[in-house]
């Protein structure tokens, strides 16, 4: 059978070979040394759409899809409601089969949508400017840390001990590669005088809210920038980083209309003060006019970027997560001011309902008595892994086992997707231990 993806017929190929002036396709590969020109490949035999769809549906079926399980797991990837409009918009192939919008005249869809995304990211974070998005929260935080080093001409990164350990690891990989160093900052101690920035997560990895204003004060007193890692859904009700004085705000935009997809793609939201605009990594879209005075959009400030500036670029980033940024824009527009606040409040109240009920169970207690948004750590009377196992058998994905950080603790996350019934069932099973 001919391939559906190779439209040339044998007759076409013969004509084309003749036009090129060669006798066979083989001759086109003559520049490749003979001894390496005919490699052997051991790959499974090809399958048709019918066969492979069936096989892959079965493979997907071997995963416990959260469409069939109640989920109380967060810790960096979140199950939130995704309105169907999001999927339908990003499923338009004019969006998803386009390249990076180098040819602005035929890319106004992507460009204008990116301008909307940047605007919405600024509205949400309270920051002055946003780029078009980075890979994920952790690389956004890492590039923010490097940017802070460039701005302050200092080489040390202070990362709060309550930052997601995965994010801290990525920051470490990036900054050490560049020859900078990383240190852990405890809440009650100061930061070194040569720190470029203090990285704080709010709500933090353990769920509770940080004293962010004090953190900002601490950073600024030491001449350092404050980088805030935030949860975008929490910003439906919590004070945004722009308002408490953060210099750079980063977040994962997965929560805004993107499926978890086993951890990727995510979306690194990256917003900062306007004065740092020209040190920012990543694409930025700006509004301008065409020769006839009609408004339009272009990629701008490109002299920061690798394809113009090469080794002097602010980052190596090229392809990023444009389609996820589009999804985030559609999501934020679909929810709007009342919708996002409502979703944030659903998360907050349901999480507090769950926390209150769990804390009343024999042997359970909240690990921290601080305000939280929708994630909280509970100390359990048994090993969290044992409890999770029991939960799983009853159709529930339990929280993250953080017993290596706090004794027998489990980090639970509740979102608007969890019904009261699910929470009650969770509490009932926990009560068996």
């Amino acid at each position, binding site marked *: 059978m001919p391939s559906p993806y190779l439209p040339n017929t044998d007759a076409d190929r013969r004509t084309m070979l003749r036009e090129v002036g060669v006798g066979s396709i083989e001759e086109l590969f003559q520049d490749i040394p003979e001894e390496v020109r005919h490699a052997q490949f051991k*790959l499974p035999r090809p399958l048709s759409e019918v066969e492979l769809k069936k096989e892959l549906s079965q493979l997907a079926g071997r995963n416990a899809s959260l469409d069939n399980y109640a989920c109380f797991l967060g810790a960096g990837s979140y199950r939130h409601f995704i309105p169907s409009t999001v999927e339908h918009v990003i499923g338009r192939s004019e969006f998803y089969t386009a390249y990076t919008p180098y040819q602005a005249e035929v890319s106004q869809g992507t460009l204008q949508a990116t301008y909307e995304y940047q605007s919405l990211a600024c509205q949400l974070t309270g920051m002055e400017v946003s780029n078009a998005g980075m890979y*994920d929260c952790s690389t956004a935080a890492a590039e923010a840390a490097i940017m802070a080093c460039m701005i302050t001409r200092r080489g040390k990164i202070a990362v709060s001990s309550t930052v997601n350990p995965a994010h801290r690891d990525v920051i470490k990989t990036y900054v050490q590669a560049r020859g900078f160093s990383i240190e852990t900052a405890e809440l009650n101690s100061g930061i070194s005088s040569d720190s470029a920035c203090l990285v704080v997560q709010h709500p933090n990895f353990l769920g509770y809210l940080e004293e962010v204003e004090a953190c900002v004060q601490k950073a600024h007193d030491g001449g350092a920038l404050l980088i805030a890692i935030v949860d975008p859904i929490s910003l439906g009700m919590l004070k945004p980083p722009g308002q408490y004085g953060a210099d750079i705000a980063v977040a994962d935009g997965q929560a805004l209309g993107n*499926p978890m997809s086993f951890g990727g793609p995510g979306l690194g939201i990256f917003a900062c003060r306007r004065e740092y605009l020209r040190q920012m990594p990543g694409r930025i879209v700006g509004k301008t006019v065409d020769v006839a005075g009609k408004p339009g959009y272009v990629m701008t400030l490109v002299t920061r970027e*690798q394809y113009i500036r090469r080794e002097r670029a602010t980052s190596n980033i090229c392809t990023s997560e444009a389609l996820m940024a589009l999804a985030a824009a559609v999501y*934020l527009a679909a929810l709007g001011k*009342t919708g996002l606040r409502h979703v944030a409040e659903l998360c907050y109240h349901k999480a507090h309902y769950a926390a209150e009920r769990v804390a009343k169970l024999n042997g359970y207690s909240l690990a921290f008595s601080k*305000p939280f948004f929708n994630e909280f750590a509970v100390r359990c009377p048994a090993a969290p892994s044992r409890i999770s196992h029991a939960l799983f058998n009853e159709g529930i994905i339990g929280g993250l086992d953080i017993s290596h950080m706090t004794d027998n603790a489990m980090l639970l996350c509740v979102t608007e997707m969890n019904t009261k019934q699910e929470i009650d069932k969770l509490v009932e099973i926990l009560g068996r231990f």
Partner: protein
Amino acid sequence: MSHHYLLPDISQPGKIGCSLPALDVPPAELPPRELLRQELELPEVSEVELVRYFTALSKLNYGVDTGFYPLGSCTMKYNPKWHEDIARLAGFASIHPLQPEESVQGALQLMFELQEYLAEITGMDATSLVPIAGAHGEFAGLLLVRAYHQHRGDRVRKKILLTDSSHGTNPASAVMCGFEIDVVASDSEGNVDMKNLESMMNDEVAALTLTMPTTLGLFDPQILEISRLVHERGGLLGADGANLNAFLGRVKFGELGYDYVQLNLHKSFSTPHGGGGPGSGPVCVKENLSDFLPSPLVTGSNGTYKLMSPAKSIGRVASFYGNFSVMCKAYAYIRSLGAEGLKEASENAVLNANYLKEKLKPYYHLPYDRTCMHEVVFSGRWQKAKGVHTVDIAKRLLDYGLHPPTVYFPLIVDEALMIEPTETESKQTLDAFVEAMKEIAREVEENPEILHTAPHNTPVRRLDDVRAARNPDLRWQMRS
């Protein structure tokens, strides 16, 4: 067609674009007021207005599904529709990365097998799927180089050599890994200048990164000699794998002497580019680098799959395990084509490029007149002599309803036009492109003004980049 309004312009208080459930638990006390935001100004639009707005925007875009997209170095091949469906299966899309491993065995199996397939396709020993995009894979590859030399106790090798035709991400990634860079010249044939390489390849050089085929669309026949030289002098050889579409299923990077290669699943393996991502940039390595790979890898034995961190891992480079949904599509691509299908794909890609080369060379200057691989680079210097620049040619192509090639890259070709047709285009499409290019070449002679003022039929005409950069307008403002 053009759009003069933005979301705030259609926003009206009291509207919403989706329905949400009511609270079904007793409300809790809110946190102290100083922790809360006082206002949240987001647009308020109904669902139909929202959908129409974004549908109208989509119509201002040009994608592979719209038409021919011969963007050199970007491999804009067709993206099979059903691969999208695979990535959207609930068992793949609705799984949390931190779920118990036993509840995601299907996902881990897919990743494990994809690691193996990519190692086989590149002739390498191990694969990390974590890097999110091509430049991210380059970054990871260079970190491996660094770790390799450091582990050997060699701290002198601080330089990365790259060629004057390399992608901009190559030097940018090297700097992000703390390396200095040095540039090796290309010779008059478009190959690496061996004398130049010979003189630069000293004990300060950690690696040579060399795209193969080069960004001139040419296979450098000296590759085995290059590899020998680099290794003899203690360096490593790395590939920016952006051009793998030239020899998929035919040649293995490992057999060419490469120590690592970074791939672009969103190019060679047919996953859509999304208007600028999501991509996926796996890095495949020989055994000498495999212990350093980013964390985590997927291991498998007796049908059970696990995540693990390699012994001397460079650490994490992303929050989780990479762009899993993109991996699903690339996996489907490899399984539906098989080894023979991949080879046929690259053969057709190379044939299509050579066909365009022959058809267009009477009309545009061909700086390297030899068999090309999957792409061909022309120069607009003949047209420049008539006062018409490559940018004008590109913009005029838009009037013909075609997406232009990559322009002004590689930097070593004056007024470059880099054309990559890919294998998924038919002879009829190529012929139509050739006709348009011939017509434009004629217009350069007869009516250059029409090129200077092009495009004429697009949603907007040439945009003022200078104004955009001088007075950056990067967002709308919305006030209550």
